[in-house]
């Protein structure tokens, strides 16, 4: 079978796939980047309460152009709305929700995930000039579940599903599920278990694109 027979999920495809698995009633933080797109793929009638670390619980859709409110932004500093039933809190209370274990889920972007659940998503080396930690370490440690959404491989084709993370860690043993452009993987005691593969890609082809050993469900 030719490798051109499959079509990797794009950013919205990954977001839509992850959105399928979020049930009504969960309190969820969506990280910057692809995870933020997940909100657009949750059906309006399914009540999922979105937390933004800048102190917004119950984030709604983007603002309408004719009703601007520059004082209401999400963690990506995009202008958003707040749903009826939402609440504004200060930064300590916002992170009390995160660190106190009150979020059912956070979905983060990732650079690398290891088979023991280690996550690297904030730096490519210990010495780079910029350091952008933000709320990722708090979310990775504090949420009840941590999912990661990311391309299965780097632009150069290098694997991101690893035996050990090479980049500086965000948190150890925190990830329970990974949504990539090619598959959905659970992180378990046995390592990565393949939950789902995109149409046209075989288990062996997925394994060839991963460094860690994958297991069948």
């Amino acid at each position, binding site marked *: 079978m030719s490798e051109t027979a499959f079509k990797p999920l794009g950013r919205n495809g990954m977001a839509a796939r992850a959105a399928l698995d979020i049930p009504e009633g969960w309190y969820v933080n969506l990280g910057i980047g692809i995870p933020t797109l997940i909100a657009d793929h949750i059906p309006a009638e399914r009540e999922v309460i979105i937390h933004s670390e800048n102190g917004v619980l119950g984030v709604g859709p983007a603002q309408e152009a004719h009703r601007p409110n520059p004082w209401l932004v999400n963690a990506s500093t995009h202008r958003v709305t707040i749903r009826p039933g939402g609440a504004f809190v200060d*930064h300590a209370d916002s992170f009390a929700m995160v660190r106190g274990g009150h979020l059912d889920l956070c979905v983060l972007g990732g650079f690398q995930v290891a088979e023991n659940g280690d996550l690297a998503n904030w730096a490519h080396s210990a010495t780079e000039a910029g350091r952008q930690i933000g709320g990722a370490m708090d979310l990775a440690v504090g949420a009840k579940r941590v999912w990661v959404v990311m391309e299965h491989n780097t632009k150069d084709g290098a694997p991101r599903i690893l035996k050990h993370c090479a980049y500086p860690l965000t948190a150890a043993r925190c990830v329970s599920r990974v949504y990539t452009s090619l598959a959905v993987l659970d992180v378990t005691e046995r390592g990565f278990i393949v939950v789902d593969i995109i149409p046209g890609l075989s288990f062996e082809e997925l394994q060839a694109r991963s460094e860690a050993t994958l297991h069948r469900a």
Partner: protein
Amino acid sequence: MIDKFVRSMAEAMNGIRDGSTILIPGFGEVGQPNALLEGLIEQGATNLTLVVNSAGRVLPPGAPPNGHVARLIDAGRVKKVITSFVRANSTAGAWVKAGKLEAEVIPQGTLAERIRAAGAGVPAFFTPTGANTLVAEGKEVREYNGRPCILELALPGDVALIEAWSADRWGNLVFRDSARNFNPIMAMAGRLTIVQTAHVVDLGQIPANEVITPGIFVDRILRVPANEPVLPGQGSNS
């Protein structure tokens, strides 16, 4: 009669000394006290340590003039930033790379909790956030609930600069929507807490059940026009 309002920016900034630690709230520019930051730039104190969520946004090509935090850094007035973001391609990032600015980059929740701890009289606390990461370097580790936790210290400020939506003469404050962010906890953690407010209300107009920051945490208040936040896409470079 208690009246915490001051009449001028000079009065608001009076006594801020070289070497001070300055708490600066805001998420992007939302909730950031830009008028007071202008005042601080004018006032002249130097050798400052800034505690601020983000020490500088990306500089896009042909970007408009820097935001206020970047302007303080670019003026050589800042020796250190304590922050959760330093971007490589920002003013702060360039100064850090050149070895002219010290940066303590820490998790955002740890930043918030350290500030809150200072306001609440907690000198130190353990947290699992940052354990097993570069953030843990040099910090005491102890296990709680089966997880390694690191010891973090309270982070008080000599001065907190606060942006409020409404204030009364006792210093009771409310904030607008997500502009609340770091403002209440920084107001608590400042030894000298200076507020810019868009609106002034009579005592009692903020119902006792709706006060967000009680006046006990506030020293001086200056009325300034509403500080409409500029978003990154609009040229912000806070």
